């Protein structure tokens, strides 16, 4: 071994230390980024002595990464569902406030009882009609809220699909860089970091599974098995439904020719915000809308007027409550989409529209042939009493609304509230569970692959000492060479 060799080894050592310092400073710079992975310079021996930084390795844990992606997707889905269900809950409110259709129905029943107690009192009649109007308006507002939620979900899916397309483009570019860099052997750890970030963002929209292939190439599949990216981004198509209304379904999201949302999807996606939005738009909101429609239809049926003659010839006609298809009463037990948006108090009984409230007591809202109080007695209460009984009489409801089929209208309205609250409770509990799973997965992944500032600082001390020693060595060798030179002169 000669001095020149020692010098060159020392120089190599210096540059290796300098590179490792660079790695450390990169780590320190990334300490604030949540999912940045720790980079380590790996030393290897050089032929002829010395070390160099062979490759900058990146700390990674496949299993924890996969768990983390799954947790992100599930938490995102549940979060979306809870947010939308909470908006639906606004139509119901707290049971104490009586602002739900069930509560307003209760107020109508009390107003009818008050009118029956004082049938000659015009004010009591007006109060009953006003309570009916509140109920009709409550149903109109509820429908508007539910359809608004559906439209929000539809728009949400549209913007999610746009983001997904952008993310897949970025993923494609990064993937190409990674593959090229791996083949050339250059440092691609930053691109790997960015690629993982993009995958995490994709997981928020739709659940993903990663498959590693040769040369660092990565393929992406949805959690249902549909290809998202394999050497190239796959086509995603979705169109918003402009006239979304009760009974009209939204379109499905189609990835690579396979629909991933909707009840008929075979390879449906079950996580990610797109799945959550689609579940509410096509499932919960639709069922709830059907329940509100059935309540409206039940009201029209309950207050419909029948021909009081001994041999009835006139058909049943809409009484206190009418709708856009009135005066015909909708058939029993069959859902009519959107009826709750058009239900209103019959103008013939509404004083604000020139009607007479006393027709509620006497019958005849649908026409003179339906008058029950033919003697015109001012104290006639039997008709009003019959309406109150009818509110508690079992009637048939369409089973597609999922809250009972042969029960009283008041019980039906209460069941609807039960159903929504149960959905909300389940979704909120699931959301809390998923959020805590996400927290734990994130911290597990971060602990395994993340950066610890104190660790880097301790490392820095080592490198500093090593640099000091190497510099000292170079100085010593230099001194030795100088001694040699001066000895020769």
């Amino acid at each position, binding site marked *: 071994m000669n001095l020149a060799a020692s010098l060159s080894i020392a120089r190599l050592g210096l540059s290796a230390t300098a590179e490792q310092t660079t790695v450390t400073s990169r780590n320190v710079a990334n300490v604030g*980024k949540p999912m940045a992975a720790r980079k380590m310079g790996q030393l290897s021996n050089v032929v002829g002595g010395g070390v160099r930084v062979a490759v900058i390795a990146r700390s990674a844990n496949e299993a924890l990464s996969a768990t983390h992606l799954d947790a992100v997707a599930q938490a995102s889905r549940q979060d979306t569902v809870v947010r939308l269900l909470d908006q639906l809950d606004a139509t119901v409110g707290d049971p104490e406030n009586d602002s739900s259709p069930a509560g307003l129905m209760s107020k109508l029943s009390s107003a009818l009882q*008050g009118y029956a107690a*004082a049938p*000659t009192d015009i004010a009591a009649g007006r109060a009953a009609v006003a309570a009916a109007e509140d109920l009709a308006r409550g149903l109109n507002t509820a429908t508007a809220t539910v359809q608004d939620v559906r439209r929000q979900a539809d728009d949400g899916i549209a913007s999610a699909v746009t983001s997904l397309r952008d993310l897949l483009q970025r993923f494609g570019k990064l993937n190409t860089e990674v593959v090229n860099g791996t083949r050339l052997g250059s440092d691609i750890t930053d691109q790997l970091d960015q690629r993982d970030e993009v995958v995490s963002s994709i997981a928020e929209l739709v659940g993903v599974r990663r498959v590693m292939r040769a040369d660092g190439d990565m393929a992406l599949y949805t959690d249902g098995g549909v290809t998202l990216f394999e050497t190239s981004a796959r086509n995603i198509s979705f169109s918003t439904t402009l006239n979304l209304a009760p009974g009209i379904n939204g379109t499905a999201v189609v990835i690579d020719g396979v629909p991933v949302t909707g009840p008929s999807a075979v390879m449906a996606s079950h996580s990610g915000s797109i799945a959550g939005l689609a579940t509410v738009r096509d499932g919960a909101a639709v069922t709830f809308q059907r329940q509100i429609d059935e309540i409206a239809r039940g009201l029209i049926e309950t207050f419909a007027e029948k021909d009081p003659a001994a041999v009835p010839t006139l058909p049943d006609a809409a009484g206190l409550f009418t709708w856009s298809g009135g005066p015909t009463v909708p058939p029993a037990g069959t859902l009519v989409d959107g009826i709750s948006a058009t239900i209103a108090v019959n103008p013939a009984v509404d004083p604000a529209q020139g009607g007479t409230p006393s027709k509620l007591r006497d019958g005849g809202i649908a026409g003179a042939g339906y008058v029950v109080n033919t003697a015109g*007695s001012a*104290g006639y209460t039997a008709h009003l*009493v019959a309406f109150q009984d009818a509110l508690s009489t079992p009637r048939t409801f369409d089973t597609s609304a999922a809250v009972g089929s042969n029960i009283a209208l008041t019980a039906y309205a209460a069941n609807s509230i039960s159903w929504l609250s149960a959905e909300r*409770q389940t979704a909120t509990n699931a959301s809390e569970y998923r959020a805590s799973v996400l927290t734990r997965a994130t911290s597990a992944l971060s602990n395994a692959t*993340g950066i610890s500032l104190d660790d880097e600082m301790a490392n820095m001390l080592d490198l500093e000492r090593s640099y000091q020693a190497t510099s000292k060595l170079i100085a010593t060798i230099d001194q030795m060479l100088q001694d040699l030179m001066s000895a020769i002169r």
Partner: protein
Amino acid sequence: MRTSLISTYALSQAARTTVRDTQNRLAVAQTEATTGRRADVGLALGVRTGVSVALRQHQARLQAITSSNALASSRMDASQSAMTAMVGGAQSLVSTLLAARSSRTGPGDAEIAAKGALQSFTELLNASVGGTSLFGGIDSDVAPMADFFASGSSNGTAITTAFQTAFGFPPGDPAAANIDPASMTAFLDGLFASEFTDAAWQASWSQASSQNVLSRISTNQTVETSVNANEPGFRQLAAAYTMVAGLGASKLNANTFQVIADRSASLAQQGIAEIAKSQATLGVAQQRVATADQRMSLEMDLMTRSIGKLESVDPYEAATRVSELQTQLETSYALTARMQRLSLLDYLR
């Protein structure tokens, strides 16, 4: 070589997550401690929210029925006192008639007394509470009895016409002194009695409906809560009064007057008995209303307690939770601050 398995990010996140979770739970606990009810009832009860809603619906219904029962009870109380007054008036007329039989000025006094009695009888029958007439049946917006002494009244005209038809001159004519008891008896049994049949009564005397007011007094009971003016007791009393007041009794001779007086007294007694029956029937209705009210108030208490069991939180437990969470929050604040200050950098030179 990697010796530690902790990252700076995970360390700071742990503290932040704890603080955020504790703050959320503290907000909920504060609401519950203040109101004594669950902060979000739907979320807490889930599928049982419908039970709470149904209980409230039932409670509201009972409340409405109870207040309408109060109205019905006050009407029935007023009807009972009116009927008692009518009975009193009839009884005093009977004693007046007994005295008038044997006195010279009897007929004159009796006619005046009967006129007064008929007038107060009419007023009592036309009594109303809150705009609804008590004895009108379901035609409760009109006063049922026509005023006999108003000029051109339907009942006054009918009686006068009947008298005229029977005897050829109107009541109060001096020729009435020649009417003999037998023809008066015939008149009373014939044309006069026919003025007080159902059809004639409803035609000229009463505008009331024979259908009584039907009220719902509980969730499954409806009863009739009024007495109408077409019931037999009122007709008999009206006939008894009219006999003395509307037939010009002061102009009749003593024997004919005695016929009228006896017939009037016996009719009045029958009327009193019939009215007592009506009062008894109404009394039964009142009793049923009172029983229903009692039962409903017990039910409402039960509803309130059931709703409370479902929706309310133990206030002591909620207050304890609030103070526990406050302590927890303070601890995590302190620890977070402490941990942020721990760094190797402080110890490097």
